[in-house]
């Protein structure tokens, strides 16, 4: 079986599992909405401030939701030691990484329409359809950037005690460039881009993803081997 088919099979397995229970998507969507509303409560009834910091709150919500999604994504593999069954199959470890990272990216990207919609309502963001489309595209790009290192680290932390603490500790500092580039590009998508800076920030997001998707595929075998 080619590596492409192996990746596809693992991705489909994850999507099927998700579709059958739908527990993860419901809990992460709910968590995202709670987080967005908490930022609004913390900021107070100050609409101009919410509009100003809306992009930052959105990206932070994506980051916090990613922790929950990544942890849950590997919990199913450790239940009844399913990962061992996966490793016994003639499957390239890189295919497992890419299959699971793609699944996580898709999962986080699908949160975009719901959470961006909620942010538009909660923070009274004044946006047109083009800006919304740009936001959703950038959301998916940021999700890809978070998923590659996140999948690798979630594979590690899911195997040891203290995973709830450890995943954010190792994941968040590493993805600071994604956080910065996503906030800047979200802001430019919402408030206009008179200096044509969007391409530079998209390049940062794309370069980060490219590097960590490539490195993650090579290193994953050392994370899961017994």
């Amino acid at each position, binding site marked *: 079986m080619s590596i492409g088919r192996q990746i596809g099979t693992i991705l489909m397995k994850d999507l099927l599992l998700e579709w059958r229970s739908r527990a993860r998507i419901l809990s992460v969507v709910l968590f995202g909405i709670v987080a967005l509303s908490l930022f609004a409560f913390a900021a107070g009834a100050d609409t101009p401030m919410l509009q100003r910091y809306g992009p930052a709150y959105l990206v932070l919500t994506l980051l916090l939701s990613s922790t929950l999604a990544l942890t849950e994504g590997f919990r199913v593999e450790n239940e009844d030691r399913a990962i061992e069954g996966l490793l016994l199959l003639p499957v390239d470890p890189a295919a497992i990484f890419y299959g699971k990272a793609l699944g996580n990216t898709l999962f986080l990207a699908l949160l975009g329409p719901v959470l961006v919609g909620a942010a538009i309502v909660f923070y009274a963001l004044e946006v047109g359809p083009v800006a919304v489309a740009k936001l959703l595209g950038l959301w998916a790009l940021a999700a890809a950037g978070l998923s590659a290192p996140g999948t*690798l680290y979630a594979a*590690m932390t899911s195997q*040891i*005690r203290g995973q709830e603490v450890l995943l954010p*500790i*190792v994941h968040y*500092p590493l993805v600071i460039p994604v956080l910065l580039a996503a906030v800047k590009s979200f802001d430019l998508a919402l408030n206009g881009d008179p200096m044509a800076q969007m391409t530079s920030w998209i390049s940062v997001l794309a370069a980060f993803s490219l590097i960590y998707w490539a490195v993650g595929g090579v290193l994953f075998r*050392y994370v899961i*081997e017994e």
Partner: protein
Amino acid sequence: MSWTLRASHWSGLLGLALLLVGSYIGLFASPPGRHMNEVIRILYVHVPTAWIHMVCYLIAFLCGLASLWSGRRRWDYALIGAVETGVVLNVLLLIQGMIWGRATWEAKWGWSWADARLTTSLMTVLIYAGILALGSFVDEPERRSRWMAVTNTMAFLAVMFNYYAPQIFPGLHQVGFTPETVDASFKMPLRINAFAMLFLAIWLIGQRAFLEHRRRQLEDVEPPTRLAMLEES
């Protein structure tokens, strides 16, 4: 005592001696800066700390690759030593940077990209501290070594980002020193302290690697034998 441990002791002594000489020249013999007056003297420790903390992370990265490639334990010991020494120097670097910033920019900390190096240095120390936290949660030594090597490889890309940050986001921070951009009177204490920091870092890495080696020896044996080994040492 192995010859590497003995060599690391000599390295520590040499580093301390050089640091005393370099600090004396930096504090008393070299002239004050043209624009920054006495404040410039902090650069004689700040710049060498910056250079050597990156060298430590580079050593950790190379040891991590060697560990993954060969599976030999000696690389794991050196890796842990290099990461811990790098983190200590990184924290010192941030403290020195804050003192410098307070005196020259009238602010201890600048969150904006006006000083990208400060922000990326904080990011780097958080990444490596996270790696050490992860390592402390893994009980099996072989798995701990593998994961430390993997996370180090991931983290080193952030070190590269930190290194090039002032070029990517030009701001207040100097891009870097070369012998051509520094007056001759400043070169001597800078060079001496850079070698001092390097030798001290080698000493610290050696000591920590030896401790890790002993810890692994203890982990490899059953508790009764472990107790006997501890009593012997």
